[in-house]
């Protein structure tokens, strides 16, 4: 396939140009060709490579090779703050054939390969963020310098559903060894796309020299000149190309299997490529990368991954359907009612992110004092970890105080309650708060399942009540379900969204419906798994039924994380609302009554079923197979998701997916959940229709 035809798949490509200049540097016979990769926009739109960008680089290298006098070195760098952040994936949804996908791999290999095959030394000056294909371009150069100010270095391919396919799967393990390469390409990618800091990358051997940002280019060129004229000797680590290589691959496979159970192909393919790279010649290895790209670019998992990436990194920045942000009121003081686990996390979050006074209040003086102390300890822990400065810690500790009475909340612009999940208790709390705060104060509830409208009903100003449903652990999960109650006005809703965003969380607007989105779907799914157990399915079988999805944890592990009492409470609430779909398991009730934290004991590192729990449970005699449990649970999820859309709990399937990724940690390769339900045919079988049209999170036919 021709490059021009490829370019047609990327009509909206923001082309990264390769700008060439020549510098006469002392001590070298010829000039240094300096190639700058620059898409012409600022750092908020980092440079990427699509077909046209690769052609630009190709032509730049032509220009350099034709230059007279002959150059003594080629140095490639990026625009300020960015080296290059990889392939332009915006056109991928339009790639319709595997041949096209393979051609993308070949084009990258051919152009980057010119830097590797160059007869004059080539240098990558990694001045800023280098991700994926950008890092592969750097690896294709003979030498690399790295700025200590470079923002992020990573191979996010496996996170998205790809492999480093422009040389990275071969070049990186041969540069730094298979063990480190697998850590970077596979482990980091699967750990929420973890990035390397420059010092780490240098330590691993990815870069040969590191310089400070103030004169990074100047120092890099001087260093490069030293390499060319022999003054600088570059030492690289010894790479174990024997059993150490194979052992690393074996360990990598085991880790991926534990995590994914085969749910997504990319990390497996990456490990295959790295395994083969040990003995393969470079052409064979690169051809294998092309084939892997061909398969993966056309895969449902990658298409879901790109869809999900777009949801969480672009769409989630601004809540869809939210009122004009200019309507939001300022939050200069926050009140938190309650001093329990959730209240403490909320107090810490608001103090840390908003840097405003936060007052906790609780009817139980002992719990209040313990709560404030716990938040102060958390602030000190942040300082100890270097996340905040000692001065900021002092400021935040002073900002977080306790008040034994509700009067302490006077002057607050926002009060959020996180007291016991009881509608009457919460009503009383809001009624009390309303007496001491200004008319404009936002009243928010962190309820996970109660009706926000019901809570607001008897207040003088129900229009300022919203739900702000954070997820536990608050510091980790980036979602807030912002619940618009019946009376909520635009200003209050805008304030709630602004507050969530100021706390660096992604807000999704939801209607005031039982369980909102995440808890409703999780509870429905969990309900089916528990029901299967109640009916006699072995716990182990039921709990591994969903393994093939690669969820972050098995259902019974999730139950332990949430806590059986909370799970029971949510199940009861949903049962009250939808008795025909949400059962309340007697076994779950027994678990709660027995005060058990879950069904597993973790004493040996590996979970084993608590014999007390086995004794506690009464079980039926109609077990299901593992496959049946999975089918049943997923059918329930599809059914519930469709109902939520029909009831307009959220505006669209994208909101559901965004919620499940950000609030439950569901993986990108499922696209959240609706792309998975679509591609497996479950949506159509259960609900008679797809959630998303073909071509969205899936290849076009």
């Amino acid at each position, binding site marked *: 396939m021709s490059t021009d035809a490829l370019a047609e798949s990327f009509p909206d490509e923001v082309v990264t140009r390769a700008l060439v200049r020549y510098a006469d*540097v002392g001590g070298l016979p010829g000039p240094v060709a300096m*190639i700058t990769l620059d898409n012409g926009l600022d750092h908020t739109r980092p440079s990427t490579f699509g077909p046209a960008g690769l052609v630009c680089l190709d032509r730049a290298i032509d220009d350099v090779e034709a230059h007279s006098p002959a150059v003594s070195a080629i140095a490639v*760098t990026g625009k300020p703050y960015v080296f290059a952040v990889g392939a332009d994936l915006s056109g991928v949804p339009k790639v319709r054939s595997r041949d096209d996908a393979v051609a993308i791999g070949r084009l990258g290999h051919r152009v980057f390969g010119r830097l590797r095959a160059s007869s004059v030394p080539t240098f990558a000056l990694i001045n800023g963020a280098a991700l994926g294909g950008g890092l592969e371009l750097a690896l294709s150069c003979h030498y690399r310098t790295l700025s200590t100010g470079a923002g992020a270095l990573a191979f996010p391919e496996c996170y998205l559903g790809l492999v480093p396919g422009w040389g990275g799967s071969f070049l990186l393990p041969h540069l730094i060894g298979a063990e480190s390469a697998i850590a970077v390409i596979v482990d980091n990618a699967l750990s929420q796309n973890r990035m390397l800091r420059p010092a780490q990358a240098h330590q691993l051997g990815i870069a040969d020299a590191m310089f400070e940002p*103030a*004169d990074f280019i*100047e120092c890099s060129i*001087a260093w490069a000149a030293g390499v060319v004229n022999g003054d600088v000797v570059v030492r690289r680590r010894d790479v174990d190309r024997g059993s150490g290589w194979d052992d690393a691959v074996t360990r990598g496979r085991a880790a991926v299997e534990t995590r994914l159970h085969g749910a997504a192909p990319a990390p497996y393919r990456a490990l295959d490529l790295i395994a083969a790279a040990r003995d393969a010649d470079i052409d064979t290895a690169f051809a294998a990368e092309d084939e892997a790209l061909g398969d993966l670019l056309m895969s449902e998992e990658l298409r879901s991954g790109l869809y999900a990436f777009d949801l969480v990194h672009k769409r989630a920045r601004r809540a869809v359907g939210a009122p004009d942000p200019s309507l939001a009121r300022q939050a200069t003081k926050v009140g938190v009612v309650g001093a329990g686990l959730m209240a403490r996390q909320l107090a810490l979050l608001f103090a840390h992110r908003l840097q405003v006074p936060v007052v906790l209040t609780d009817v139980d003086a002992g719990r209040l004092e313990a709560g404030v102390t716990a938040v102060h300890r958390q602030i000190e822990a942040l300082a100890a970890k270097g996340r905040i400065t000692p001065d900021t810690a002092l400021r935040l500790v002073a900002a977080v105080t306790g008040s034994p009475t509700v009067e302490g909340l006077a002057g607050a612009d926002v009060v959020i309650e996180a007291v016991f999940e009881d509608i009457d208790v919460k009503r009383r709390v809001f009624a009390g708060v309303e007496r001491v705060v200004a008319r404009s104060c936002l009243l928010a509830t962190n309820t996970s399942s109660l009706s926000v409208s019901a809570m607001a009903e008897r207040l003088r100003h129900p229009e300022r009540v919203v739900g702000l449903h954070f997820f536990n652990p608050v510091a980790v999960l980036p979602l807030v379900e912002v619940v618009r109650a019946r009376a909520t006005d635009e200003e209050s809703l805008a304030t709630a969204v602004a507050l969530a965003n100021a706390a660096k969380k992604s807000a999704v607007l939801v209607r005031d419906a039982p369980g909102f989105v995440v808890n409703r779907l999780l509870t429905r799914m969990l309900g089916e798994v528990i029901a299967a157990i109640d009916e006699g399915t072995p716990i182990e079988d039921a709990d591994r039924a969903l393994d093939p999805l690669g969820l972050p944890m098995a259902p019974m592990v999730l139950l332990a994380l949430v806590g059986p009492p909370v799970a029971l409470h949510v199940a009861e609430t949903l049962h009250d609302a939808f008795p025909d779909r949400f059962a309340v398991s007697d076994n779950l009730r027994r678990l709660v009554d027995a005060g058990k934290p879950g069904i597993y004991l973790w004493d040996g590192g590996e979970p084993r079923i608590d014999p007390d729990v086995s004794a506690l449970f009464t079980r039926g005699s109609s077990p299901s197979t593992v496959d049946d449990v999975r089918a049943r649970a997923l059918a329930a999820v599809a059914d519930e998701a469709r109902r939520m859309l029909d009831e307009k709990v959220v505006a669209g399937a994208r909101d559901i997916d965004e919620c499940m990724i950000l609030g439950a940690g569901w993986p990108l390769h499922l696209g959240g959940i609706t792309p998975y339900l679509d591609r497996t045919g479950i949506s159509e079988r259960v609900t008679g229709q797809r959630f998303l049209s073909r071509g969205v999170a899936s290849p076009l036919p």
Partner: protein
Amino acid sequence: MSREAAVSREAAVSREAAVSREAVSRALSDVVFVDGVRTPFGRAGPTGMYAQTRADDLVIRSIRTLLARYPDLARERIDDVAVAATTQTGDQGLTIGRTAALLAGLPASVPGFAVDRMCAGAMTAVTMVASAIGAGAYDVALAAGVEHMGRHPMGDGVDPNPRIIAEKLVDPSALVMGQTAENLHDRFPAITRSRADDYAAASQQRFGRAVADGSVGPELTTVATRSAEHGYGLATADERPRPATTATELAALAPAFRPHGRVTAGNSAGRTDGAAACLLAASDVAAELGLPAAMRMVGYAFAGVEPEVMGLGPIPATEKVLRRAELSIEDIGLIEINEAFAVQVLAFLDHYGIGDDDPRVNPYGGAIAVGHPLAASGVRLMIALATAFASRPDVRYGLTTMCVGIGMGGSVVWANPHWHEA
């Protein structure tokens, strides 16, 4: 005894001690010029090599390169950072001495300040910190200057007081440097256009030879020059010099400041972007820290003249510094005089009876060739003199001098540590 009482008693005791003991002033020190670095000088304007490079980055790069030569000098030992700029706004603003120090990676404990004496900014930065070293307040200090005349054209944003015109305090031509140069030609009819052009051509040729023989070059750092349109480049050499220039060619240029005048783009320093930085230390501290001494400061002086003939400034400044140092012009073996305009150099030479082509004067050429980034040039003169000292142990004393806008001159006399009697 309560804690409060104990504290107050302690305070009383220490007050008593303070009264009974006279604080000791530090002894006066000799000041040495350790080393200097400058950026290549660029042609100011949209096509110049620094068109899209920040001014502060130029001086930061100079400071970093200079300090990188002395890795063993603990950065905390630097007592101050003086950075001069004539237009202290934008990327030359924000107390550039302090911000440049921080951005150069110096510890937060190292202070800095900004200096302005127009063309003599860097020279004033040097004399300021040298005075502090001499008085024993500092041990080691950085002095630097920068002018990005492309981003900050001379006179940009100024708001002259209307009294200047209303009360005829200063001739209006005083604010246009080229007109002050024409005024000098008027005052000294013996300084003709052709003498000025001959001098300018010689400056170009001397500079060209100095580059060729390596007298100019080692003090240069490199600067990454990014342009949004063309990507990164690297400045490694001065952009302005035209070593092949002849007086005949210069004679063909049109006057730039007055119809049928004498001052042209060829016999004056062009608008220039650049920065220069130097390291100064007390001589005993330099010895202790193993820092070399390229020059020892003998003395300095600044003097004012009528603003409309500002080019005369070096004459009274030099008279003053020589008188105080008890030296005469005959004792001065090398002179680095800034060439804002050829006429102003010739006026100085005529005053002292020195020939237009005297080899003691600007042996490596001057600003007519390399350019004059106002507040940076003083340090460039010092670097040139230090270079010349090293190769001329027969010379005992040298002079750096320059004219200054609004009618001033500055002169610094230096002793050559390499000097030995023949």
